[in-house]
């Protein structure tokens, strides 16, 4: 269980987040949505580090800020919006660096670490690319590689910042399905996204942020409302739902 209570974060002399509270159940997928500057990435960083100007961030009742650096990295993994692809590094080595929180300061990976890294490659369908340089991977392969490295940390909480923004629709769906499959092991996922359709399709819990506060939260059907979204995204948006309850959010320009 992730508990965020009355969190305030100041950047550049102004509150980027204020009085944000949030609960995420173990094994749930929580999607943070909202326009640019709403505070999604700031909230993810607060979850990752526990560094806030007021309030508390806890995982399983333990304050994130009080955890040691390595302990925190064993429980929380982050997939950044634009992860660095190091030149000259092969995929297997890249993923094995996810074991860093378990490796002593001057040490190297042991047999158990190598086994975990190999499993992560397999789960993300990357084993056949293990000896490829990461700079030569396609967009979809690279995104899966980054998730595999995060997964090698064996975290309880996976934080994703725009995990699929650089991918085409098919690869977006593929990566999201793979991440969804990881929740079978009680992995909790919190993602920041601009793709409201994917948020609706995968998240159990959707949180709409606007100017640093939680505007609405709940199931996708409760939050993805045309009036709310149009107001906070400052544009005319339509929410379409098919007979099976699948939702899509599309911009609306009116009749041409």
């Amino acid at each position, binding site marked *: 269980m992730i508990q965020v209570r009355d969190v305030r974060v100041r950047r550049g002399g102004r509150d980027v987040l204020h009085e944000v509270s949030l609960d995420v159940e173990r094994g749930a997928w929580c999607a943070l949505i909202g326009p640019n500057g709403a505070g999604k990435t700031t909230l993810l960083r607060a979850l990752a580090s526990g560094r806030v100007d007021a309030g508390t961030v806890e995982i399983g009742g333990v304050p994130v800020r009080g955890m040691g650096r390595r302990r925190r990295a064993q429980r929380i993994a982050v997939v950044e919006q634009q992860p660095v692809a190091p030149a*000259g590094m*092969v995929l297997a*080595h890249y993923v094995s*660096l*996810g074991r860093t929180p378990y490796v002593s300061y001057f*040490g190297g990976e042991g047999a158990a670490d190598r086994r975990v890294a190999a499993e992560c490659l397999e789960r993300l369908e990357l084993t056949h690319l293990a*000896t*490829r340089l990461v*700079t030569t991977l396609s967009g979809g392969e690279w995104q899966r590689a980054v998730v595999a490295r995060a997964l090698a940390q064996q975290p309880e909480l996976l934080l994703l910042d725009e995990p699929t923004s650089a991918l085409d629709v098919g690869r977006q769906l593929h990566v999201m399905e793979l991440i969804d499959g990881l929740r079978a092991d009680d992995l909790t996922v919190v993602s920041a996204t601009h793709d409201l359709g994917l948020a609706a399709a995968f998240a159990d819990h959707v949180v709409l942020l606007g100017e640093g506060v939680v505007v609405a939260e709940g199931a996708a059907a409760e939050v993805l409302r045309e009036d709310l979204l149009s107001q906070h995204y400052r544009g005319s948006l339509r929410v379409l739902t098919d007979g099976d309850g699948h939702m899509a959010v599309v911009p609306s320009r009116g009749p041409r």
Partner: protein
Amino acid sequence: MTGDAHGRDAVPVGVAGRPTLAFGLSALAGMAVLGAAMLAALLMGPLPIPAGAIVRDVLDGLPFVSVDSGLTAQQHDVLWQLRMPRVVLGALVGATLALGGAAYQGTFRNPLADPYLLGVAAGAGLGATVSIVYAPGLSIAGQASLPVFAFAGGLVAVALALVVGRSFGEGRTSTTLILGGVAVASFLTALQTFVQQSHDETLQQVYGWILGRLSTSGWTEVRVILPYVLLAAVVVLAHGRLLDVLALGDDAAESLGVNAGRVRGVVVVCVTMATAAAVAVSGLIGFVGIVVPHAVRLCGVRGHRALLPLSAVAGAAFLVACDLVARTVMEPAELPIGVVTALIGAPAFALVLRASRGGATP
């Protein structure tokens, strides 16, 4: 050994970055090249000394080994008081510069980084110029003052760069440190030029130092730099895996439980001390810190746990070979070794880059 057209990697380390048999063979090959370069450097000189006698005399110096080398007393003195100290000093300085370059390129995620990045060369240059101009003949604790001034100047310059770099932004990011180094180096170089131009009677001496040289007086210079070089080598090599983590970016390193600023600080301090010590006894020898690590990478070496030791061995061999050229090509005059490293290194580097056809990104 370069990666193939599909980006697959034929590397002397395992895919998980662990040393493998291929790495061991590469290290052995590097040591063999270094040994050959050292032997060639010991052979060349006005007084002929047979190669077999050199090998036997070196073996005779090992514990529990007794071999009659057949050297005359004069040959023995020339070997152990003139040529061997110079060759060992060249190997130590070359290893330091190449190891420092590889470590800085990893630490700052900047392929153009060399050990002089944070202003150590500019500071040492100013220190050396001040010593030549204002304190000729001064000795400090029985030592010539020039290496002491150069060492101190290098350390002060990097300390200033760290202070200035921190003042630019919130944290010690690699970019702010580099900017601090650029600012400090520019300022100190201007000061050095001013002092140098104000005392043109010492120009030749100053330039002679700036262009680098490996002249020795017995084993003094080796003893001066050895502790710094050993300390830096041990610490930097121990940080090999963490430099791989830093390659992911500071934010990713933090999310993996690594204090990127602390790792960078430890590596910078150790490389600075060793580089300042090397510069103090050899002057400014350029190009080694950039060319050698890139050449090693272009041979297909991946991961800092392999790159760092192989760069050190290759750097040692490269500088010993350059010094051999420097002192023999215009005999009895000597070329400044910095000129030789640039004259050999730049075209060789360009050729290696061309041969790689972009297949391996440095």
